[in-house]
């Protein structure tokens, strides 16, 4: 090595002692250059090493000038036996830089790309090269003697120039030496260029790494063998390891083994499903949404995993997979919560049968929210009743049911979480640990069962409505899976509130339906009377839900002297008010009948009764027929009075139907009312059909049954029993209404028996009368 150390031996400015064996020196120099230039990848070091290589072997002073991208001569490295000269020259270059378009040989070499050999440097020549007087003085004072300036050219680009100089009395340079320097410059240029490129790359790499390390997204780089070669800070944290080293030292797949990785649908994913692996198999994987659960802690995260390749420039195959994991847990949780609650609300709205809806809720919650869901309600005595239980694992579901059967919740046992939530009305979150399980157990066997469930965490929330706690929802997770945390509480509490309201509504509804049904029954005759020689059938069908008392009614009762009253009516509106008006109408009619009044008077009395009510809009229609049975000739005499009610139909034995009676003013609103009394004869075998407007309006306005439709149906009346006719009309009305009628329907069918068929019809009639009483 003849580098810095050797040089000090020679000391001061020295000349090469002639060139007796230039080829030997040249070879040694080039070999040395090869060794030196391979050692460093730092541009400044490389330049210095190149400069020092020539001194003192072939130069007293060596200067390397480098240009920047714009061609400006900027950087400089100087080597000289006399360090003062070296420092002065560096200083000179800074103060008086060489103009790149000037006459200086360095500028010339860079411009032309040709080596410059100036065997004899004259004072005059030096002055012509100088950038300033001081520069000229420096060169003259330093006794510049001879110079070779070779361009530093690499990869079709001139980086600068390498200058070697002899000072004082040394020999002028020869062409052979110029060739040597030119060769040295070529090698040096390559080394400097490599060092520069490396430095640029390194800088870029450092900047990239700084970016990667600081990224919020977790980034890992995995090689073909599946080893992690890089992981940023976020990745280290996400993967729950101590350091990047732990990751890079882990065997492929080892880290993944620490997680339960699930797809959005809850399917477990393997390493081979991950984008990085698929990329290595030559696929072009789409970003993958995964639910990542740390097995050790049960901590859950939602991640979007993306992989992009670093390709081998030669083969085009992926060398590395760069994996980015975006944590969207918060977004996903919110989305899941919103979806879940929307779904739960749909379930609650779908039915008023709370046992059924709570069962559906339990199924909805598993496995979306937890592994096990139980719902309990308190009954009227305050006892806790389990109403729904679901578990992801059928075996454990059996276990849970067994547990709840053997150890039913006890309100007074404060060890039970359900009892505690019921009494406090506050939600409970418990992380279950094997050592604390005993405090919830009532005995050894209970403890055993609880252990078998392998509980991880439990949330119990109250189901409340209007400040009352109606029951609880218990949600639990297995120890092995995702754990329920405090963060899950708001969602489950909201579910509890909605469930509480749904249960309360269902209870109120059931209660109301029960009352409505009882009231409706009270408003209709319990049983239709038996009229000799005739049969009767009646129907009342409420529209829509059963929880409102409807406004249609009918009644059949004895008038006087073997005469009968058939009445049908429609009170406008629904609910308690309609019920009261219905009761008033029926009782007024009965009272009027007892005093033997004529049909129009009876109808009018109902009108008067309604007017006598507190101001309101109680409106009612009434169709009334007084039937006087005749024995010789057999038949009946009908007297009809209508108050705003559709005309009844009289159908003869041939099926000819005709409306009877004359329209009269509806009752209770307009005064006075105009009522007409009409009289019609009814023959044996004839059928009388009285109906409310709900029948003909069924299906209106698009496809109403209408009066025409009803008349059409009635043409078959002679072939049907009254009960069959009623069923047929009802079925037609429901069909026209597309399954659900818009208004209540009431029907009253009266058939005068034909001679000889009486007995048979009578039996049939009785059977159906029994039916109607149950409606």
């Amino acid at each position, binding site marked *: 090595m003849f580098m810095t150390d050797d040089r000090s031996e020679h000391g001061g400015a020295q000349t090469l002692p002639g060139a007796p064996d230039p080829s030997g020196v040249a070879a040694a120099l080039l070999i040395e250059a090869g060794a030196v230039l391979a050692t460093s990848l730092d541009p400044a070091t490389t330049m210095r090493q190149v400069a020092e290589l020539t001194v003192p072997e072939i130069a007293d002073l060596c200067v390397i000038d480098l240009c920047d991208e714009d061609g400006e001569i900027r950087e400089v490295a100087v080597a000289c036996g006399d360090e003062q000269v070296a420092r002065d020259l560096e200083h000179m270059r800074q103060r008086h830089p060489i103009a790149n378009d000037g006459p200086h040989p360095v500028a010339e070499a860079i411009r032309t790309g040709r080596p410059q050999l100036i065997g004899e440097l004259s004072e005059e020549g030096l002055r012509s090269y100088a950038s300033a007087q001081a520069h000229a003085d420096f060169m003259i004072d330093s006794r510049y003697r001879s110079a070779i300036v070779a361009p530093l050219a690499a990869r079709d680009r001139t980086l600068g120039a390498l200058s070697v100089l002899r000072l004082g009395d040394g020999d002028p340079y020869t062409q052979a030496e110029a060739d040597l320097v030119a060769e040295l410059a070529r090698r040096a240029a390559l080394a400097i260029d490599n060092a520069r490129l490396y430095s640029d790359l390194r800088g870029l790499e450092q900047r990239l790494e700084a970016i990667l390390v600081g990224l919020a997204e977790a980034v890992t780089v995995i090689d073909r063998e599946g080893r992690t070669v890089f992981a940023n800070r976020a990745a280290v944290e996400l993967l729950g390891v101590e350091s990047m080293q732990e990751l890079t030292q882990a065997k492929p797949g080892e880290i993944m083994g620490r997680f339960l990785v699930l797809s959005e649908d809850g399917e477990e994913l393997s390493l081979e499903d991950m984008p990085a692996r698929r990329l290595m198999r030559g696929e072009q994987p789409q970003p993958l949404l995964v639910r990542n659960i740390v097995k050790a802690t049960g901590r859950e995260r939602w991640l979007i995993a993306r992989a992009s390749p670093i390709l081998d420039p030669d083969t085009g195959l992926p060398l590395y997979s760069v994996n980015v994991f975006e944590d969207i847990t918060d977004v996903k949780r919110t989305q899941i919560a919103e979806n879940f609650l929307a779904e739960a609300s749909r379930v609650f709205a779908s039915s008023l049968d709370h046992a059924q809806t709570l069962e559906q809720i339990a199924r909805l919650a598993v496995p979306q929210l937890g592994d096990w869901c139980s719902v309990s309600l308190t009954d009227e005595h305050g006892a806790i009743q389990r109403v729904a239980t679901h578990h992801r694992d059928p075996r454990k579901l059996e276990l849970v049911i067994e547990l709840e059967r053997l150890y039913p919740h006890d309100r007074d046992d404060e060890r039970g979480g359900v009892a505690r939530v019921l009494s406090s009305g506050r939600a409970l979150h418990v992380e279950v640990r094997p050592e604390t399980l005993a405090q919830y157990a009532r005995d050894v066997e209970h403890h055993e069962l609880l252990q078998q469930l392998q509980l991880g965490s439990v949330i119990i929330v109250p189901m409340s409505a209007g400040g009352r706690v109606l029951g609880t929802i218990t949600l639990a997770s297995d120890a092995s899976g995702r754990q329920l945390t405090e963060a899950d509480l708001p969602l489950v509490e909201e579910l509890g509130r909605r469930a509480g309201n749904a249960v309360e509504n269902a209870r109120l509804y059931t209660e109301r339906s029960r009352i409505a049904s009882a009231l409706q029954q009270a408003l209709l005759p319990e049983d239709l009377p038996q009229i000799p020689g005739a049969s009767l059938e009646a129907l009342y069908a409420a529209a829509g839900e059963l929880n409102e008392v409807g406004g249609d009614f009918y009644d059949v009762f004895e008038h006087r002297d073997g005469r009968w009253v058939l009445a049908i009516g*429609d009170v*406008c*509106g*629904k609910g308690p008010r309609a019920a009261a008006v219905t009761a008033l109408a029926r009782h007024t009619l009965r009272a009027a009948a007892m005093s033997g009044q004529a049909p129009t008077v009876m109808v009018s009395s109902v009108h008067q009764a309604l007017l006598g009510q507190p101001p309101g*809009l109680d*409106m009612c*229609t009434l169709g009334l027929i007084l039937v006087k049975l005749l024995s010789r000739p057999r038949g009946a005499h009908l007297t009809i009075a*209508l108050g*705003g*009610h*559709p*005309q009844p139909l009289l159908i003869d034995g041939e099926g000819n139907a005709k409306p009877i009676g004359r*329209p*009269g*003013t*509806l009752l209770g*609103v*307009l005064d006075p*009312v*105009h009522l007409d009394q009409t009289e019609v004869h009814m023959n044996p075998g004839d059928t009388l059909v009285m109906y409310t*407007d709900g029948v003909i*309006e069924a299906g*209106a*306005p698009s496809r*109403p049954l*209408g*009066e025409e439709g009803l008349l059409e149906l009635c043409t078959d009346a002679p072939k049907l029993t009254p009960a069959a006719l009623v069923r047929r009309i009802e079925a037609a009305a429901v069909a026209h209404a597309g399954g659900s009628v*818009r*208004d209540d329907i009431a029907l009253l069918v009266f058939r005068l028996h034909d001679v000889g068929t009486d007995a048979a019809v009578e039996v049939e009639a009785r059977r159906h009368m029994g039916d109607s009483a149950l409606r």
Partner: protein
Amino acid sequence: MPTDERLGIEISRDGGMVVITLQGELDLASAEVFSAQLDGASSGDASAIVVDLSELEFMDSTGLRTILAAQQRCGEHGRRFAVVPGSRQVARLLEVARVEDHLHLISSPNEL
């Protein structure tokens, strides 16, 4: 101005006369909407109200009750009240209820 899924209500004014044109169905479900609209339209300096049922497809007894109630309120405020009958179903309902003697029926709003 559509005010209910199945009931359309249009209100136009000509001086003191307010014409309320109904379209679709006037029944238990839409009666309250109509009642409220009618009260709103017939306040202030309205001197005559015409309810035009010529474009109404269907009316039930609750709808009829609402119209009768409106007539009653107009009477109390000294406003004239008239009805333009509509479809066959509506006309039949008015006939069955025998309200022709009590309602001022006209064939078009211009008649008033």
